[in-house]
């Protein structure tokens, strides 16, 4: 296991208030302690589906200026440049297809990484190595080794890392977690985490080969990245068909990186993971912690990214609809649920920017997310093998199931090797 630390995630937004409130009355010290609002320069790496949704959110952050866009697909980096130039009122946004050139820029402060899953860990590490702060979309890793490497790099380079689990900062999910943490549900004994298409990327589907576009339009080798090389098909790139490919996608981590994360946070167990995984048919996996607390990974929920937290004295359930369901309306008595768009959230990116200035840890740093992803990867393997297994957290392996442990290791194709 990696370094164990308990870190408070609570209301980082208070932190800004703390700094401001505590210092506002002592001007002389405030000037030295609070950094002036210098402009933070940012770039986007990966301007596909998710990147397009979040770029406007980042652009609109006060005090942020985008200076570059990077994508191996020419059409995408040019689209991003167009957006950025229009926003800045100047046509000076640079474009790159090679992230290494982008990271060499000394005038770049921070990055928003929204590439496909296979690139998240390597890009985050490279960025932190280059002294940049990183907001990296979930999942933070496709393998346990990747997650550990991101954590090591995080600790060594001391950059701000914000994992894209924005639902941690969305009102209805915060309410549900708070209820569980407050003790009002009694002892929380079972948590449920909503899953997207389970098994969708259990195998590789290998679409028919198509003629490779020119290098200037698409750098295919880099697009594939550390995954095993395969024949090109435009659907992988332009229609997100990579979600159905084992090589490119983490299966249960699709929503698990959100829902398992929220469940673990609610239990105060974000630095650990269940140690037993039991697939129950095609739509459910049951996972258990050593003390018997149960986590149910299942498809069926009222809406997307559902979570349900059950205790001896009550339960709470919520999802992307924003509604919070409770066993007793008393549980929500006197409580106002703040509403935030889970898809284009502002609170989570805003917190990232604030942390860039204060250098304090964001609310979703790598080590807080790593074990959730270990659970995702372990659960995926158990699910794919349809086999109930124990999982050892120290060695991150399935004792007595060498074949399953092997499946936890992912491709590390040169020249995009994980060095971390």
């Amino acid at each position, binding site marked *: 296991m990696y370094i164990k*630390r*308990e*870190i*408070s995630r*609570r209301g*980082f937004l*208070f*932190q800004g208030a*703390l*700094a401001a*409130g*505590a*210092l506002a*009355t*002592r001007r*002389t*010290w*405030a000037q*030295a*302690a*609070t*950094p002036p609002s210098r402009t933070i320069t940012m770039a986007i790496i990966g301007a596909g589906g998710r990147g397009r949704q979040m770029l406007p959110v980042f652009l609109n952050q006060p005090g942020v200026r985008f200076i570059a866009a990077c994508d191996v697909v020419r059409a995408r980096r040019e689209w991003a440049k167009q957006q950025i130039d229009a926003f800045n009122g100047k046509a000076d946004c640079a474009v790159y297809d090679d992230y290494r050139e982008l990271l*060499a820029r*000394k005038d770049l402060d921070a990055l928003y990484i929204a590439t496909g899953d296979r690139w998240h860990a390597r890009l985050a590490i490279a960025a932190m*190595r*280059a*002294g940049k702060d990183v907001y990296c979309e979930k999942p933070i890793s496709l393998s346990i080794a990747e997650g550990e490497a991101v954590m*090591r790099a995080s*600790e*060594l*380079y*001391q*950059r701000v890392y914000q994992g894209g689990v924005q639902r941690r900062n969305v009102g209805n999910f915060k309410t549900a977690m708070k209820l569980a*943490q*407050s*003790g*009002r549900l009694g002892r929380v004994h079972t948590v449920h985490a909503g899953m997207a298409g389970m098994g969708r990327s259990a195998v590789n589907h290998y679409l028919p080969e198509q003629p490779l576009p020119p290098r200037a339009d698409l750098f295919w080798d880099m697009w594939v990245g550390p995954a095993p090389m395969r024949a090109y098909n435009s659907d992988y790139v332009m229609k997100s068909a990579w979600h159905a490919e084992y090589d490119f996608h983490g299966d249960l981590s699709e929503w698990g990186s959100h829902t398992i994360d929220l469940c673990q946070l609610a239990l105060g167990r974000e630095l650990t993971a269940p140690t037993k995984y039991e697939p129950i048919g095609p739509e459910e996996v049951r996972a258990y912690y050593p003390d018997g607390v149960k986590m149910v990974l299942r498809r069926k929920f009222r809406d997307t990214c559902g979570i349900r937290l059950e205790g001896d004295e009550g339960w709470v359930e919520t999802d992307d609809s924003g509604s919070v369901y409770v066993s007793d309306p*008393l549980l929500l*008595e*006197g*409580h106002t649920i703040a509403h935030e768009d889970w898809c284009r959230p502002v609170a989570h990116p805003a917190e990232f920017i604030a942390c860039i*200035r*204060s*250098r*304090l*840890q964001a609310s979703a740093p790598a080590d807080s997310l790593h074990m959730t992803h270990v659970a995702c990867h372990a659960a995926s393997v158990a699910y794919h093998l349809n086999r109930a297994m124990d999982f050892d957290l120290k060695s991150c392996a399935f004792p007595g199931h060498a074949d399953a442990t092997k499946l936890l290791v992912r491709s590390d194709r040169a020249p995009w090797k994980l060095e971390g």
Partner: protein
Amino acid sequence: MKRILTALVSAWCVCAFADADADLRAAHARERAGQKTEAAAGYAGVYANDKLPKHQRLAALCGLLRTDDARRASLGRDALKSSDAEWSGTAAQAIALLPAPALDAVRATWLKELPGDAQVKLVTALAHVKSPAAKGYIQEILKKTAFPAVRLAALEGLGRTGGADDAKRLVIWMHSEDPEVAAAARRGLILLTDARANRVLADELKNYGKDPAFLAKLLDVLTVRNPLGLGGAIAPFLAHADAGVRVQAYKALALQGMAPEMPAVLAAAGKATDKKERKEARRAVARIARRMGGVQFKARRIGNCRTEACGVADFNNDGKLDVIAGPYLYLAPDFKARKVREVKSDVKEDGKGYAHDFMNLPLDVNADGKLDVVSGNWFSKETWWIENLLPTDAIWTQHLIEQTGNIETGILVDIDGDGKATDFLPDTQITCLYQLGKGGPAPFTRDSVSNDRCDMGRGCGDVNGDGRNDVLTPVAWYEHLADGGWKKHPLNIGFQGGKLGHASNLIVFDVNKDGLADIIVSSAHKYGIFWWEQLKERDAAGEIQFRKHVIDDTWTQAHYLGWGDIDNDGVPEIVTGKRFMAHNGGDPDEYGPLGIYYYDFTPGPNPVFKKYVISYDSDISVGLNVECVDLDGDGDLDLVTTGKYGGPVILENKLK
């Protein structure tokens, strides 16, 4: 040439950067392997090279802070003092993450050597990290720092990192004369995530009884923390001498109070005179009432007439129930008032005075298929039946029944056991009954049950279980004999402190399910709703005895007891309310807040009556009667009542 030099320098920079990175990673690997000294040496090399980019030197600095025990204090101090915000901020964050032994070792040094702003930065970072080491450091800073800004940051930090055992400390700090310190301590108290802190706070309340201003602040913190379940600890403060404390207690209980606190809240609310306090009291009662899970009602005024009795029946034969009260008829479904009679009235805005209308009993007196109204009142000393002239717009004709003397009110009863309540029992000084259609020239035949004068309050039911309905007064019950006659029996209830006096209607019901009819009754103008248990043993004279049980004696003027199964549990509930200005201010607590309540019980030995609040201090109440009827036909009983506050009022049952 310049270009070549630039290229060479860049290349060298890139190489240097790459080399430094390799050194950092090597040092980190050593650190993770537990080789602190070697790691520190590796970091030191990178740190010392000031030609390297800032972020690499920063990474090295953080590595040194983690591994170099000897230099930690000085490195940390210098870094925290740096005017470069990134430098000092990153160092602060790295320091905050250090384990306890490392932090403890440098604590004393930094407390001495760090200037205020650097300490604030450190405290901020420590507060961000929830580790025992961080908390320990914050506690020490709080004790020893000389800088006010640091103290403020540490107070909030203690809130962020602390547990229940820090609550008491923060309460003491909240007592500070410095308003900023008090405010920071308050914020800290609110931030404490340990739920056990609420219990500590609740216990602290007891220590500040003589400091009302502070007590109110503590109650406010508890309100904001909203713990639920501590209502019992807060309720005693409703009786505090200071109004500010009481207001805070109401606010806290509005959020946290449950059924056990309701009696205390009602008792205190009854004494509230200040407008603000009454408002908070009202709110607390309403919120607790909702939480108690009783039947919820939605009140709706359909008129603004200050009369005190109403009747509910289908007066226009359209299948829907209508309301009659005072001079007006309110026809369903829009319940618009239409005048059908003249009623004398001198009722003023404050409710003093009277309308000459104390009874509205729907009864088809002239057998024309339309329900008429039997009416009467104290002042006119007559009973009338008012002839339904619908569908015309004519004012209804008033026919005299008899000059009965003062009439308080009256109820429809079934005295002949034919299953139809077509007789009426007026509440007048003698005891008599009027039976409809018994023959003779007048529509009603009077049956004099007794000419003995007694207090007001009448009821009808089978007391002795012989299958015939008897008539009751507060002091006697009149056995209905097989030949139609009446035999007077005393109502032996051994009432403490004298007789019951003027009573409400008397309800006959086997409350304790022992096969013997009991009596439910209240004091019409004073305190007390009771049930009188019929005992198996008769007295020496062979008369039935009753034992008095108190249902509720905390409020006055329960002038009428409604009786209907409003929660659909198969057993009727008592529905009643405080009559408004019954005696123009002369009765006990006549100016107290109005309220409508219901009492739910399960028949059986030692029955418990659970009190629910339907409405409180909201300008509506029960006047001389409340009708429990399914007004909207949805399967649950609604309530209709009126009073000198201006009505009628329909209370729609929200069960269905």
